[in-house]
């Protein structure tokens, strides 16, 4: 029997205090019934004696201290999952909003998930070809990786994420593939851009959308990515699908978290974000991965906008410490008209080394990758020097490096949004570019590969 309480003592959005409760437990889900019959949800944040502090998931508007009733459901927040979720659109709380019927759940899963046992993980090492050279060649994505896109306001991260979702495939493979897309506090237009792209390419039938738009309640955003990941876990580990999860925008998520933390009057950490932001983000990001003995996988691409393009801001900073690399977009390249404007030097894929090479991509991949990075880095330095001192101040070698850097940006990175390059094409373009440099400078590549692949001038 579930008791109903009419003892709300305090409402300070997004928190509420309920008195004289019995048997309420931490993290339990609750329901608030308003006088007009509307039902809103909340969860228990703290319980002391017979007093419970709960967090509202929706707006506090209309809650009446004397009349509104609260009941606690005795379970944490759950999502009813089923294979029928594919092709459907849900709101941030997991309710269908596409006009279709309710989902007949195959199972109910706690949206907070459980930590994956490190001894049960399978190491991600299967190359995913995204068709984007700057990713495939230099910051390779592998199946089960979490690789965020660090963007800035006004940069085309949506176009890049959509391109990856559209083109990503595993070489010689016919696995079942699904996309789970979570819109977290983004605008209708941006959300529609993705959905339209999924629709246009027919991917919509194998996509699950969770949508919390900018005008939806901010506190709901804390649940939205967890809903999406719960659905993804079901598809990946119960239905053996290869799932790509796109979460956009993590910055909005962190801000919602900050809002709740401030309301709880917690000691703030950097920039007012709670001290547990790292742990909180980790409990989402770490849900990506593969498990031993399971065919499915969750590959995650969270997108975040760096406030003031500052990589040391707590949100990108903590994300970078958890995720397995990052793809950073550059405002300079964007201004130059390079599409996609991926800044390859600070970008990184930590899992690339085990996903490339002979048998996965090609034997020369690792060497050329390091050489391209080193060459571009030196070329950029040379170009910087050139702007200060003029071209005459450069040594002959440095002039070649400067030219290499220029071409590299234009040809290798700036491939456009519709160009889908195979890994062989990417490697060939790399070798063409390296042939600009003097052969003796190609120290990072094995001699035998230089002889085999370097084009004759």
């Amino acid at each position, binding site marked *: 029997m579930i008791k109903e309480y009419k003892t709300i003592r305090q409402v300070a959005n997004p928190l509420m205090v309920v008195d004289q409760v019995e048997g309420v437990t931490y993290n339990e889900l609750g329901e608030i019934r308003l006088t007009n019959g509307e039902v809103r949800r909340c969860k228990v944040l703290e319980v002391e004696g017979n007093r419970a502090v709960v967090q509202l998931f929706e707006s506090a508007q209309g809650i009446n201290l004397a009349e509104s009733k609260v009941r606690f459901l005795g379970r944490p927040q759950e999502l009813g999952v089923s294979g029928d979720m594919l092709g459907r659109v849900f709101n941030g709380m997991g309710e269908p909003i596409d006009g279709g019927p309710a989902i007949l759940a195959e199972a109910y899963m706690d949206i907070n998930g459980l930590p994956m046992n490190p*001894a049960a993980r399978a190491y991600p090492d299967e190359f995913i070809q995204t068709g984007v050279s700057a990713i495939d060649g230099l910051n390779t994505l592998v199946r089960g990786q979490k690789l965020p896109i660090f963007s800035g306001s006004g940069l085309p991260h949506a176009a890049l994420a959509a391109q990856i979702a559209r083109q990503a495939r595993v070489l010689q493979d016919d696995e079942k593939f699904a996309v789970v897309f979570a819109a977290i506090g983004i605008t209708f237009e941006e959300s529609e851009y993705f959905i339209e792209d999924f629709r246009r390419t027919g991917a919509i039938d194998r996509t699950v959308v969770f949508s919390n738009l900018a005008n939806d309640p901010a506190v709901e955003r804390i649940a939205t990515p967890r809903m999406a990941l719960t659905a993804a876990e079901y598809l990946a580990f119960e239905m053996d699908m290869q799932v790509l999860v796109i979460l956009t925008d993590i910055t909005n998520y962190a801000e919602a978290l900050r809002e709740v933390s401030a309301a709880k009057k917690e000691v703030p950490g950097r920039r007012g974000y709670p001290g547990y932001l790292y742990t909180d983000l980790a409990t989402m990001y770490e849900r990506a991965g593969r498990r031993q003995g399971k065919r499915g996988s969750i590959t995650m691409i969270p997108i975040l906008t760096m406030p003031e393009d500052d990589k040391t801001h707590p949100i990108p900073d903590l994300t970078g410490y958890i995720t397995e690399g990052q793809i950073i977009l550059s405002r300079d390249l964007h201004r130059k008209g390079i599409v996609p404007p991926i800044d390859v030097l600070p970008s990184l894929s930590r899992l690339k080394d085990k996903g490339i090479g002979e048998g996965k991509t090609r034997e020369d991949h690792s060497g050329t990758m390091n050489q391209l990075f080193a060459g571009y880095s030196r070329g950029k330095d040379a170009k910087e020097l050139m702007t200060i001192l003029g071209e005459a101040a450069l040594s002959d070698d440095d002039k070649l490096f400067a030219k290499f850097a220029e071409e590299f940006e234009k040809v290798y990175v700036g491939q456009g949004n519709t160009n889908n390059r195979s890994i062989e094409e990417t490697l060939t373009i790399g070798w063409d570019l390296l042939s600009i440099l003097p052969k003796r400078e190609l120290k990072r590549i094995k001699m035998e590969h230089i002889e085999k692949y370097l084009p004759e001038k």
Partner: protein
Amino acid sequence: MSGTITKVSGPLVLAEGLADANVSDVVRVGRERLIGEILNMTGDTASIQVYEETTGLGPGAEVFSTGMPMSVELGPGMLENIYDGIQRPLPEMRAISGDCITRGTDVAALSREKKWAFTPVAKPGDQLSGGDVIGTVQETSAILHKIMVPPRLKGEIISVIGEGEYTVDEVVCTLRDDSGKEHQLTMSQRWPVRIARPYSKKFVPRRPMNSGQRIIDTLFPISKGGTAAVPGPFGSGKTVVQHQLAKWSDVDIVVYIGCGERGNEMTDVLNEFPELKDPRNGEPLMKRTVLIANTSDMPVAAREASIYTGITIAEYFRDMGYDVAVLADSTSRWAEALREMSGRLEEMPGEEGYPAYLASRLAQFYERAGVVECLGSDDRRGSVTAIGAVSPPGGDISEPVSQATMRIVKVFWALDSSLAYARHFPAINWLTSYSLYLDSLGPWYTEQFGERYMKNRERAMHILQEESELQEIVRLVGQDSLSPADRLTMETAKMIREDFLMQNAFMDEDAYSSYNKQFKLLGLVISYDELCREALSRGADMNALFAITAREKIARAKIIADDLVNEEFEKIEKEMKQQIDEAVSGGELI
């Protein structure tokens, strides 16, 4: 002793009715018997940090104290194993609860079924005290596990079991102490994690730990029993440096603590270490490794405990007379766990919300490292080397955890994001890093490899220092303004950086570099510098000197196999000399 919960707030639980419990006792909380530890007592109310997720706990639920402090179980079976932060074996947990970690799983740290081949050493009638060896177990092919009398116990041996196979629960020895009380000893013992295991005497460390990493061994060495920190922003390769040290350090045992880091990194170690061979004895590296994994998605309170669990296990192996390395990745996550609990306890925060006792806790951890004479009568020596990664927010080391760490550790390998962007790995900055062990290790290096070793090192550091000054000038007025001697300094510095310091952890030939190879390789570069300097003074053309083809060979010399080093390097040196001579005579012709 049992009490009742009055408050639940995340991992912090308050319970009343626990007047008899001690501070730091382990308690079991609620119906699921979650594991917790008492942090504070006020009257009969205890503040408890719970090591597992507290969802579903509420006031009224029962708490009972085990009456014991947080301890680890020490004995055969720890090597090759992977534990969570409170020493529960993860493979066994997987067998019980599946791919995810569920709550209240109760698993013994050491297998109760597995039988170990025990060989007695002590005999009835022997007078033994704490640390004396009762018998031995060949735990893995690489490590002989010594079964010791627990510290603080001494007396006469009454009986010792014969050679044979026993489980860790079987009594292998009975000992009567001075008061006449008989103690039945098994192959395992318990020790509270927050208390350092005792030893007889501590020494100043004077032997280097060979890591096979050129920048570490040659420029910034660490000694066995020393302490080091690896700070760096994300993506600068902290974890790769830690993995490299875990793989190639010439210690007997490695305890690797993944504290609040990625799950896949632990999986990587689990996959890779059994395949890799120790360069010294050819045994798989896993045979000497203990893993502690409390990944970032696992409960935060257990993260705080994981560091202590790890170092206590390390001290236990040290007590057998082994050299042990503890690698903690990352101490910043540990400090954050401390901060989170402190916040929930509503303690007055110090800097950036960290508790005021952050620095003293860190110091206590690092101080458990050292070279010691172990307990026991055979004067054996063991060491614990502690190396902690630090993850400063935004890569800015002015934050409290980095600063508190720097005050304690003796070696500082500062990772640099600009080096990482240029894919110069390991991205240890040679200008900001330091090792305070150089003075105490210098004599060892000189004894092993002659005066030349430290001289080369000094010369290399000098050239790198000069390069950074010259670069300032080049940035302002261009390269042409430099004298030929300065240009040579720039070229040599580039060779030191690219041909010597840079080391590819993912290339088999380069991942580990023996002392001999390191010494010879730096020798080649330094002698190129010296010969060219001399040639310049004899009027050789600078560009001709820079263009000699032997330099390309030096650039590729680091991948020469160890057994060919002497021969091949000699050839390169000869070729280099000849080409420089030619450049000199060419210069004279003009």
